[in-house]
């Protein structure tokens, strides 16, 4: 962005904020959500999308694991939050996939096999989602899963980033991936050759990994990139230059499938909410990405680890503290459940 462009941009954002203030004064900024059946403050939702988009651009993550809890904590029914964020993840990964597609940094064969597992996992996820909703344990499962996965992954990331920072400070070069290193996964049958990734592995762990991420993504309203990327690197040993594009490709289409399954199964995808989040998200992501270029990788990972653990902790507190109200009500079907 040149200086001239920046100035023009600042001016237009100024007029935008002025007209926003006027509209606030004229009428309340409430927007009625047709599926959630509640009015929300459109600018609050837009800002949430923007803030999470900023962080996702900064850290190179999808941001679903931040956005879904944020929506739940702000009073959107959990079922609507989860289903709608799957749609938002489609939008946020679509533009990134295009970039990696142009750079040819996607292993299509690997992504397709991952995707097959992902769609299957997503289908199972929606079915389970429906069952949990009817027995009243959906919120519990969402909370428990968030606590488990976020604290485990956050902890791992924290550990890894602190080690990396220490290593950098003590001046030891990080050890590169050793070629020919194998683990138990490479002993499984049904091996397939992935030329782009220079891999020869069994399809079982690939389909399995896709299915797990698809399943969790559908139930928790997350893309799952923060689980997929380490799994591809450490378990399957996919080269790092291919990992992100391939993971994003898989997430894009798994979440597209999850959106359709949620629309048909739980009927809780709110298109108006999704649209507001998407627009906020894609704009925020641009600023985040620019800022991210000025920060060190290990510092970024440390910040991200703290963020991930923080969200997990928030869910844990809700589960452990004595609830303010022991009673809750739910309508059998639809958004209010």
């Amino acid at each position, binding site marked *: 962005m040149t200086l001239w462009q920046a100035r023009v941009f600042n001016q237009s954002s100024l007029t935008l904020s002025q007209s926003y203030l006027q509209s606030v004064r004229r009428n309340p900024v409430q927007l009625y959500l047709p599926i959630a*059946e509640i009015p929300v403050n459109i600018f609050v939702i837009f800002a949430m999308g923007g803030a999470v988009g900023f962080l996702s651009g900064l850290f190179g993550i999808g941001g679903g694991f931040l956005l879904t809890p944020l929506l739940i904590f702000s009073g959107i029914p959990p079922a609507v939050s989860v289903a709608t964020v799957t749609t938002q993840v489609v939008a946020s990964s679509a533009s*990134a996939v295009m970039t990696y597609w142009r750079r040819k940094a996607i292993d299509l064969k690997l992504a397709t096999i991952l995707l097959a597992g992902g769609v299957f996992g997503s289908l199972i996820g929606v079915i389970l989602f429906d069952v949990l909703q009817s027995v009243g344990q959906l919120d519990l499962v969402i909370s428990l899963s968030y606590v488990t996965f976020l604290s485990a992954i956050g902890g791992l990331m924290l550990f890894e980033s602190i080690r990396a920072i220490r290593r950098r400070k003590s001046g030891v070069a990080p050890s590169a991936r050793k070629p020919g290193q194998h683990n138990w996964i490479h002993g499984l049958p049904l091996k397939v050759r992935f030329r782009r990734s220079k891999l020869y592995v069994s399809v079982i762990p690939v389909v399995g990994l896709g299915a797990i991420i698809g399943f969790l993504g559908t139930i928790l309203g997350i893309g799952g990139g923060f689980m997929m990327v380490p799994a591809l690197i450490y378990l399957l040993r996919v080269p790092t230059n291919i990992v992100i594009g391939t993971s994003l490709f898989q997430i894009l289409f798994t979440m597209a499938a999850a*959106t359709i399954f949620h629309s048909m199964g739980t009927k809780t995808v709110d298109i108006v909410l999704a649209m507001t989040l998407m627009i906020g998200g*894609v704009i925020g992501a641009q600023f985040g990405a620019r800022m991210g270029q000025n920060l060190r990788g290990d510092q970024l990972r440390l910040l991200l680890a703290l963020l991930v653990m923080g969200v997990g902790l928030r869910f844990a507190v809700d589960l452990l503290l004595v*609830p303010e109200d022991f*009673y809750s009500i739910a309508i059998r079907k639809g958004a209010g459940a």
Partner: protein
Amino acid sequence: MIRFALSFAFAVFGASLSLAQEEASSKDLVTALSSDTVSIQSNFTGTEIVIFGQASDIERAPHAAGDFELAIVVEGPPQDITTRRKGRFLGVWVNREAERFQNVPSFYAVASTADIGDIAHRNVLDEYRIGLNHLNLAVSGVSNVPLSDRDDFRKAFVRLREESDLYSERETSIEFLTDTMFRTNIPLPANIPVGDYKIKSFLFNRGDLVSQTEQTLAVAKIGFEQVTFELAQNYPLVYGVLAVILAIFTGWLAGVIFKKD
């Protein structure tokens, strides 16, 4: 706008009143609504309806104060609603017991001229379901709630519905404009369920039901909200595919707009 609607409603009401009197002079109670539909659009943040009426009996039979009392009930379409109670399980708070209330009103508001208990006899209030304590909260046969706790669940249910503004009791909120004409406002919150509402007005004389009227109010989404909702309900596959296309398009557009130079 509201003032216009009100005056219009009064005019219509006056006309219908004279018509009603011509047709059947035996009618003791006549009521009219400020509007017979509530439309939910993207800017919907709740509204209120005004109910007007005339209780001609009051005029015909001179009475002591407190002889005649009115109650107006606004009832939303019935729903099955589950109430759950949390308990501690392995150190974590989880939903344990559940009670399912069948065919309970999704919205319930009652306005009256006096305290509900003073209006009529208990059995009459129960029969016509006037007042939050007189709702018929039937539970399903299958439940893990101990019998001794059933009442706690009923109370919690009504309390939670009150907290979300979907149930309300507005005692002494009916005001008299003349000796026989009255009006009351019933607020409808933003989270009201859609469907056909019933508005029932009751006139009591010394605790006996003298007359009653019933009207309907349609609460419906219109325009974009209606199209979206119906698409999601009736053609979920189309809705889902549309959501995906919209998302991919938005992502693509963002990629094009913010393409690095």
